[in-house]
């Protein structure tokens, strides 16, 4: 694995508190609107001397966590909206929620049956996106490596 050759001095040399903001903006520029990394942009940034993103840098970690957290939070919000909204609907719209559908009350139907497929959809979406994100991260780093060697 070529990765092991990365000098680890970098990590120790950069104190935690010191955030290289200028570098980060370059990284932001390297993203297109959908959050997809543009390799050409990286190649052109003056700071990315070893051509690939430095996986030990604060910026790489920041980017990594931000992208994943954003995805997780988006999915969680979707889920919480339904989960926390249902008791509110029960509270404020009791008569609507008591409407009978084939014997079920609306709220019983939503909670006892409808909830599960909704959650499956959210998790399916999440897993696909998150695996794609990981593959993309690997491609970025390894693509850079190939260029280097």
């Amino acid at each position: 694995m070529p990765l092991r050759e990365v000098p680890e001095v970098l990590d120790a040399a950069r104190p935690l508190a010191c955030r290289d903001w200028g570098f980060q903006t370059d990284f932001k520029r390297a993203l297109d609107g959908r959050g997809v990394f543009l390799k050409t942009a990286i190649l052109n940034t003056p700071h990315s001397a070893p051509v690939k993103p430095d996986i030990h840098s604060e910026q790489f970690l920041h980017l990594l966590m931000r992208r994943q957290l954003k995805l997780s939070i988006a999915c969680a919000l979707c889920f919480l909206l339904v989960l926390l909204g249902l008791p509110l609907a029960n509270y404020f719209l009791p008569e609507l929620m008591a409407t009978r559908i084939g014997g079920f009350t609306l709220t019983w139907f939503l909670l006892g049956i409808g909830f599960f497929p909704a959650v499956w959809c959210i998790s399916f979406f999440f897993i696909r996106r998150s695996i794609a994100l990981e593959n993309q991260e690997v491609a970025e780093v390894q693509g850079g490596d190939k260029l280097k060697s």
Partner: protein
Amino acid sequence: MTPLLALSVDPWILSFSLITVIVTIWMGFRSAKTSKTAGDFFVAGRSVSVGWNSSAISGEYLSAASFMGVAGMVMSSGYDALWYPVCYACGYLFLLLFIAGPLRRFGAYTIPDFAEGRYDSPLFRKIAVVFVLFIGFFYTMPQMKGAGTTLAYIFPGLPYWVGVALVASVITLNVALGGMKGITLVQAVQYWIKLFAICVPIFVLMSVYGFYGNQLGANAVSLTPAAMQAPAAPGIPSAADAVAPRVGIHRAVLPEKAPADAAWVSPFGPLTTKAAKAAHLTPEESRPYSLLYTYSLIIALVCGTAGLPHILVRFYTNPNGVAAKRTTMWVMILIGVFYVVPPVFGVMGRNLFPDLYSGIGAKGTDKIVLELPRLLNERYAPLGSILSGITCAGAFAAFMSTFSGLLVSMTGALAHDVYGRMLRPQSTSEQRMRMFKFAAVLIGGIAIILGSFVEPLEINFMVGQAFAIAAASYFPLLFMSVWWRGMTMRGAATGMLVGGLCALVAATLTNVSNLALDKGPMGKIFAGCAPMNGFWSHHPLLRILCEQPAIWTVPLAITLMIVVSRLTRKDVPSDVRMKMLVLHAPEQLGLKQEYIQEHQPGH
């Protein structure tokens, strides 16, 4: 056993249950031969495929609470109890979104391993281990109640505690000899047994007595006359149509103790209004309390799933992070499919078998899943017994698999952490294996004692409490450690300890005051706690916050973590960036190996 007792045993039910137990033990012993090393015992050599692993997680997760407790609680409390199965299933989404992937990448055997690795603190490991045991024991009690209830059903007249002791001993033996490798196979098979055992009887029952919707439709809410007269839009059934009795649904007379239809079928029913009712509040006044109760329950169940130690340990048996995520997806599908069914038992039980409302302890609604199929004997003679035998087999699978999983993780904590790391760090692999077996027997014994006390409590309710403790301790620890770089060991420990202990104390208070109300022997033992019920009736809000503590303990734990971490900012681990990279970077980048190499000289 008296001849009379032997005569009343249904041979079908007995034989199905026996087969399940024997197959479980046989599989345990068989795989004991193949698991030799300590690694095999703890995480099954990390080589379990997605299909096996997701079946095994589901098998372990679907406990007596899911199999028997949900149905019993839906029957006794109605709509509000539906939150339990739904949140049991959906809690997994939180686990998937925030914790599953990173935790797997970090690669450690147990949560205490993670706690130590993340903060480089052996002290923190000791603190974290404590909660494996706390949560484990709280989760064990309902499994024991399930075991006692089932055996008391199979052998009418058998004392509850004998059933508890019998089942716990069998499983303890199995775990002591088989370890995790055996358990993975057993758990996976048991998921399918449980799914089969709950689906087949209910479909037969529904085709004979009427389907889910029709059964529920029989519990018509008496709406206001105005609503009934309102003209219905075409195509949408009007309220009046819905209230009209559905033909063909047989309903037995409800005993006095059963809740009324309207309260049972609507939200904010008996479960959530209990405290407010005890305080003699009007229905209008008690509605905000019910809403609070509902939210607190949701938080406990959703966050608690993400903090259950015996589930989390299984993520380490995935070969990589992608597999860990795929596994969670499958787990959600498998348990979601399962959880649609138990409430149906509750609904049908209310219509067809309301006698159980008058029973207490092991004779109460918790055994509806076992008892209901027997009704079929009236029409198609042995079929009812066969189906009841199948649900009994499923119940055995349920509490046996969950209890073995718990036993493995608690025993692992004792043998791997307390003994292997704290007491005797120099111990050989062989000594640890012996310790593993000894710890299994010790914990099995404690489980029997605890299990004997909880007969009057509802299975599902007790599991909810275990979730509440997990939600206030491990969930904040894992969530914050994974996503916030600024966490320090002291911050994490303070938050986890305070939050978890508050939840633990609240749950215990609730339990002892509930036990004091019991009319059986437990009421006498806990009679000293009876005055607390007087206090609760004057302070319904406090009662709810004690019964469902998650709404304040989870934020409390997280706040404490942030505040204390900020105060001890200088103690943030120096290599935190590397740790975070290991947690979040894709595994293909090989950062994990690099991290281990870096740490080799130090450790």
